[in-house]
């Protein structure tokens, strides 16, 4: 209420930025990419402990067979995404960190032979059985965060989940994978949601979609009224403002409450799930199908941007070639959106569970100037922080002052950098600051 009044007076404009949406592939229906001849599967595709390989060189594998198992509760197994022969256990560059991680390379036999799947009636399954199926299918948050989904679905007993927020915001420019999924796979998403509501005994759900996707909003609204969901489900058109799809921003926009500092959405009774994750949950629970593929938007400078259904481990280059090849002016490839995505070392980088987009672009590196204290970073920050202070303190090495300005609250969305007239890579300074602060804490 208070903030509303302030906002109306213009004393506090709602935070965030408006980058051009560039949803070039929005009109392109999802296409299945041809099966790759080989796949490279890094064994760390999620937040948590890396998976441990359970196959060796020369093993014959089928699609959906576990090739690496979870090594702890916060971890997820990894499955073969094509049928064929394990060619090599190798060290590969992680598309997330760029650091070397163990990986498995499989060479296709061209047959696409699957393991035997065991379908089930989700309503006949117990809560534990559902969670086991989700865990065994290797499902992680597919919006990019890649947190293992079974962990999110097992809140500690003292936290009660009252509502599920389905994240269809897709606030990053260029990406259209979730948009297309909502249009074409509406049913799988809602079935996944139904299962989740049952598992958590939740009676309230919100499907949040940015208002720049009117078709998806209409499609979901219609599907919700026709469906038999166990409780009240509302499709909410949220303002198209980056980073609307960040968990904490979305919780505030939908529920009007803030997640306490250092806490999780479950602290205010909410659980946020990406639409693609829900579709994967349906596949796992009802069909017994492990997570081996996802929709990836291939876009940017390519001549034909597309939304492709891609097996994990496929090299990005193959997808780019399906979209018209590498344009001569391109010299940078991002996995994820332009705001938070990660620049890749090579066009051969493999698609993994969290890769929602392959963005081919021309690099735009700018000279950093001194801060002119314009305050735009403060206005842009969705967490209401003072980003310029982190730059000051990191430059001076005064890391202990960073916590006075709540640096750990920063979600690294990059809105501040987007609006910075001095081209200061504020997020890079913040990452240094967080790392240094953690080192000091460990001493």
């Amino acid at each position: 209420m208070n903030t509303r009044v302030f906002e109306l007076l213009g004393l506090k404009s709602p935070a965030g930025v408006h980058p051009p949406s560039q949803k070039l592939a929005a009109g392109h229906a999802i296409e299945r990419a041809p099966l790759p001849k080989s796949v490279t599967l890094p064994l760390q595709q999620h937040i948590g402990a890396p998976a441990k390989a359970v196959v060796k060189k020369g093993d014959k594998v089928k699609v959906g067979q576990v090739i690496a198992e979870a090594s702890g509760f916060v971890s997820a197994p990894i499955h073969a995404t094509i049928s064929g022969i394990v060619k090599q256990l190798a060290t590969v560059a992680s598309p997330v960190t760029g650091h070397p991680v163990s990986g498995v390379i499989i060479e296709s036999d061209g047959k696409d032979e699957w393991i035997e799947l065991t379908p089930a009636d989700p309503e006949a399954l117990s809560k534990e059985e559902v969670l086991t199926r989700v865990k065994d299918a290797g499902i992680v948050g597919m919006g990019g965060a890649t947190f293992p989904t079974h962990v999110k679905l097992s809140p500690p007993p003292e936290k009660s989940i009252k509502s599920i927020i389905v994240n269809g915001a897709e606030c990053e420019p260029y990406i259209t994978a979730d948009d297309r999924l909502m249009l074409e796979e509406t049913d799988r998403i809602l079935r996944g949601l139904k299962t989740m509501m049952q598992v958590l005994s939740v009676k309230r759900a919100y499907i949040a979609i940015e208002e720049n996707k009117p078709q998806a909003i209409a499609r979901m609204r219609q599907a919700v009224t026709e469906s038999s969901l166990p409780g009240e489900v509302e499709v909410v058109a949220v303002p198209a403002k980056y980073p609307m799809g960040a968990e904490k921003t979305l919780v505030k926009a939908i529920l009007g409450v803030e997640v306490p500092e250092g806490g999780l959405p479950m602290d205010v009774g909410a659980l946020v799930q990406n639409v693609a994750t829900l579709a994967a949950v349906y596949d796992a629970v009802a069909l017994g199908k492990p997570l081996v593929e996802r929709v990836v938007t291939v876009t940017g400078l390519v001549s034909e941007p597309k939304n492709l259904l891609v097996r994990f481990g496929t090299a990005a280059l193959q997808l780019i070639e399906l979209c018209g090849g590498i344009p001569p002016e391109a010299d940078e490839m991002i996995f994820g959106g332009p705001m938070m995505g990660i620049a890749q070392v090579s066009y051969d980088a493999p698609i993994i569970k969290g890769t929602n987009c392959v963005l081919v672009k021309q690099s735009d590196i700018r000279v950093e100037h001194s801060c002119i204290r314009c305050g735009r970073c403060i206005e842009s920050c969705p967490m209401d922080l003072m980003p310029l202070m982190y730059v000051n303190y990191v430059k001076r090495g005064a890391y202990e002052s960073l916590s006075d300005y709540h640096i750990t609250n920063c979600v690294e969305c990059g809105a501040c950098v987007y609006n910075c007239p001095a081209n200061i890579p504020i997020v890079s300074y913040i990452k240094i600051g967080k790392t240094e602060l953690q080192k000091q804490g460990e001493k």
Partner: protein
Amino acid sequence: MGNSTPLVLSPAPHLRGRASISRDMYLVVIALLLPTVGAIYFFGLYVLLMLATAVITAVLTEYIAKLMRKRPFNLDGSAIVTGILFVLVLPPRTPLWIVVVGSIFCIAIAKEAFGGLGHNIFNPALAGRIFVTVSFAGALNRFIAPTNSWLADGITTATPLGEGFISTMSKGELYKALFLGNVAGSAGETSALLILIGGAILLAFGVIKWHIPVFYLGTVFVLSFLMGLDPLLHILAGGLMLGAFFMATDYVTSPLTTRGKIIFAVGAGILVVLIRKLGSMPEGVAYSILLMNAFTPLIDRYVRPRPYGYVKGVKKEASP
């Protein structure tokens, strides 16, 4: 397969908005065009000479200062803005050698000595104005009536806020003259109309926010009314309008947060009225802004936004 094209690895975000320092500065220059042309129209071509002198001196001074400090020089437009603003707050017949000395002071002492753009504590143009006022008091207190001709010499007269200002105009005519700018004063401060149009340009392009001008002017209006002064005269006359839109809103020397900006503007407004009513000077805009500039670091230290999810009294570190 395999493609060995080396790829660029840059940190996120990989997308940048339109904002740039030079865009901001050149927008200010554009917004200053009307008040500048107005200054030449009211007080003659000599003002153009002052402008050329100040801008060239300011840019050259910055270039030399950057050479001496071994820092890269780029024409981001900030020295041009300082040069123009400095002339606009000078009496329209200030000797050129004073313009040169003042411009050097603005850039070399008020800006570069502190570390250059972004590090200066005081608004450079106003610091320069006070420096020349203190150093060359005689020349800096000679104001002329608008000549409305290109080459006329100008007749020395008092400004509307000055001692000995006698007007044969009715109140309505005086307000109109003040609004249009047909009164004695510093070169670019007299026309409220032209400054308001410039201010509107700055607001429309998002270069400045409305809070400082509105709270600054509002405070002066209300307080001068409460103290028995003519509130309309006090917001239209003198350098207030120019200061409110172009000087008090200077990013570098005003507070970062919206609440901080309001405190700054109200403080400056109170100072203007107090100086005009109780001080020995007819005008207080420059001092009011410079004094609040000095308070800016303090305001920024204590006025911060409440972080998302912050619960008073609970100090909690986020788990990584």
